[in-house]
C-alpha cells in the first residue's frame, strides 16, 4: 500500500526538471509518493504495455493512439504543450536566424549544405522533424550523410553532437532551456505554429494489468489537469522562461470506448 506510484515518462520531461518541480507539490497534497523513470518514447510505451508502470506521460500522438487502440490505455488526456525550435551554430552558415517559417528555414539549410543532426530514433521529436521535412516538400531518406546526420540518440546526446559538430537540429524547448552544453549553439528559428509539441498523460487499463495502482494513478492524472496542477505547470520556470504551457482546459479528454 505504501508502494510509491511509478510514472514512466520520456526523457524530455525529466531532463527539463518539470517533474522534479511538480511532484513535491503533488505529494504534499495527495499524501503518497511518486517516482519517475524516464526512457525513450518507444521504450517507455513498451514498458507501459508490459505493465511495468502505473502511469505514462509521453508526447507522440500516433503511438499514444495505438496504445489506446490496442486496449492498453483507458484514458488519454492532453494536458500541456511546449514548442520545438531549430537551434544551430552561432555563426549560422545557412542564415536562418530570426526566421519564423520553419519550412523556408529547412529548405535554406538544405540549399547551403549546412550540417543538420536528426534524432533518428523515431521519438516524438524525431517524428515531428520528419513531418516538418515533409511539409517542406523534402524527403530525409534521400539526404546525404555528408550533411544530414541521423544520430539515433536521445535529445541530450543529439544536442551534444550538434554542439560538437556545429550543426543545426530540432529540439523541444524544455530540453533546450535546461541544456548546459550550448557553447556554439543558439536558438535560431522559433514561433512557427507547426512547432507545437503536445504532451498527454495515459491511464493504464486495469483489466490488462490489475496489479497496478490505478486509483493513485488517477489521482495524479486528475491533479495534472486540475486548475491547481495546471497552474503549477504554468509557473515552472527555467532561467526565467516558462517551459510548458498548460492546455488541459482547451482539450477534450479522449476516452476509450
Amino acid at each position, binding site marked *: 500500500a505504501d508502494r510509491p506510484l*511509478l510514472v514512466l515518462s520520456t*526523457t524530455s520531461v525529466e531532463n527539463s526538471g518539470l517533474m522534479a518541480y511538480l511532484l513535491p507539490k503533488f505529494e504534499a497534497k495527495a499524501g503518497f509518493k511518486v*517516482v519517475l523513470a524516464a526512457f525513450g518514447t518507444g521504450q517507455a510505451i513498451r514498458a507501459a504495455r*508490459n505493465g511495468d508502470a502505473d502511469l505514462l506521460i509521453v508526447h507522440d500522438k500516433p503511438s499514444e493512439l495505438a496504445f489506446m487502440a490496442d486496449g492498453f490505455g483507458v484514458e488519454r488526456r492532453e494536458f500541456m504543450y511546449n514548442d520545438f525550435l531549430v537551434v544551430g551554430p552561432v555563426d549560422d552558415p545557412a542564415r536562418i536566424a530570426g526566421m519564423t517559417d520553419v519550412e523556408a528555414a529547412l529548405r535554406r539549410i538544405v540549399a547551403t549544405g549546412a550540417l543538420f543532426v536528426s534524432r533518428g530514433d523515431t521519438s516524438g521529436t524525431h517524428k515531428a522533424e520528419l513531418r516538418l521535412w515533409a511539409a517542406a516538400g523534402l524527403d530525409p531518406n534521400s539526404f546525404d550523410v555528408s550533411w544530414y546526420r541521423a544520430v539515433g540518440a*536521445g535529445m541530450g546526446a543529439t544536442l551534444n553532437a550538434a554542439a560538437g559538430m556545429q550543426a543545426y537540429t530540432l529540439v523541444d524547448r524544455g530540453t533546450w532551456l535546461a541544456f548546459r*552544453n550550448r557553447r556554439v549553439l543558439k536558438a535560431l528559428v522559433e514561433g512557427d505554429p507547426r512547432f507545437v509539441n503536445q504532451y498527454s498523460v495515459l491511464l493504464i487499463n486495469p483489466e490488462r494489468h490489475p496489479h497496478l495502482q490505478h486509483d493513485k494513478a488517477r489521482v495524479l492524472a486528475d491533479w495534472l489537469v486540475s486548475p491547481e496542477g495546471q497552474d503549477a505547470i504554468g509557473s515552472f520556470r527555467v532561467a526565467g522562461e516558462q517551459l510548458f504551457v498548460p492546455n488541459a482546459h482547451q482539450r477534450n479528454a479522449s476516452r476509450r470506448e
Partner: protein
Amino acid sequence: MNFGDVIGQAFRLIFSLDPDLLEIIGRSFQVSLSSVVISAVVGAPLGAVIAMARFRGRGALVVVLNALMGLPPVVVGLLVYVMLSRAGPLGVFNLLFSPTAMIIAQTVLITPLIAALSRQIVEDVWQGYAEQFRSWGIRPIRAVPTVLWDARVGLMTVLLAGFGRAISEVGAVMIVGGNIDHLTRVMTTTIALETAKGDLDLAMALGLILLLMSLLVNALSHAVRRVAGPAASLARV
C-alpha cells in the same frame, strides 16, 4: 571545458557532503559490491572447475565463457528486464526498477568475466598442483577451494576487474533500474543524466568522484592483501 574547474567542482561536491550525492554513491557501492560478491561466489569456483577438471567439451566451454566477457550491458539489461517485467516469468516478484534488479543485472554481466579470468589464473596454479592432487586421490572438484585460496592474490585482481566493470557500467542498471531518484539512481546513471542535460562539467566531476571511490576500494583491497596475503615477498629473500 576547463579541467581545473572540473577537479575543483568534484572536490567541492565531495566536501559539500550533499546527502543526495552521498546516497547515490552509497547505492552505487551497495549494488556493485553485492554483484561482485555474488559473481565471485558463482564465477570463481566455476572458473576453477573449468580450469581443473578435464571433460568433453571443455575447450568449447572456455571459448563460450571468454566470448561472454563481451556480453553488452544493454543486452543484459534487456534480458533481465524481460524476465522481471510484469509480463515476464518473474514479474510477480515485482523486482523491476529496484536495486535488487540492478544487482541481478550486474551479476549476470560480470559473472562470465570473473569466471573466465579466474579460469586463467587458477589454471596456472593448478598446473603445478595437479599431479600431487591426483597422487593424493583428491578429485579436482574437491580441490577447488584449496586452489582458489592459494590463487587468491591473482584472483583479487580478477575481482577488482569485475568490480571495475560493475561500478562503471550504465547500460544494464539504466534499463532495469530506471534511474529513479532516491530509489535506483547510481553514479553512472547520474553521469548519463547530466551528460544528457549537457552539464558536462558536472558529469565529469561525478566521474572523477566515481574514480576516487574505486581508487579507495582498490587501495583497501591492496592493504588487506598486504596484511593477510601469503608471504609472497618472502618466497625470494
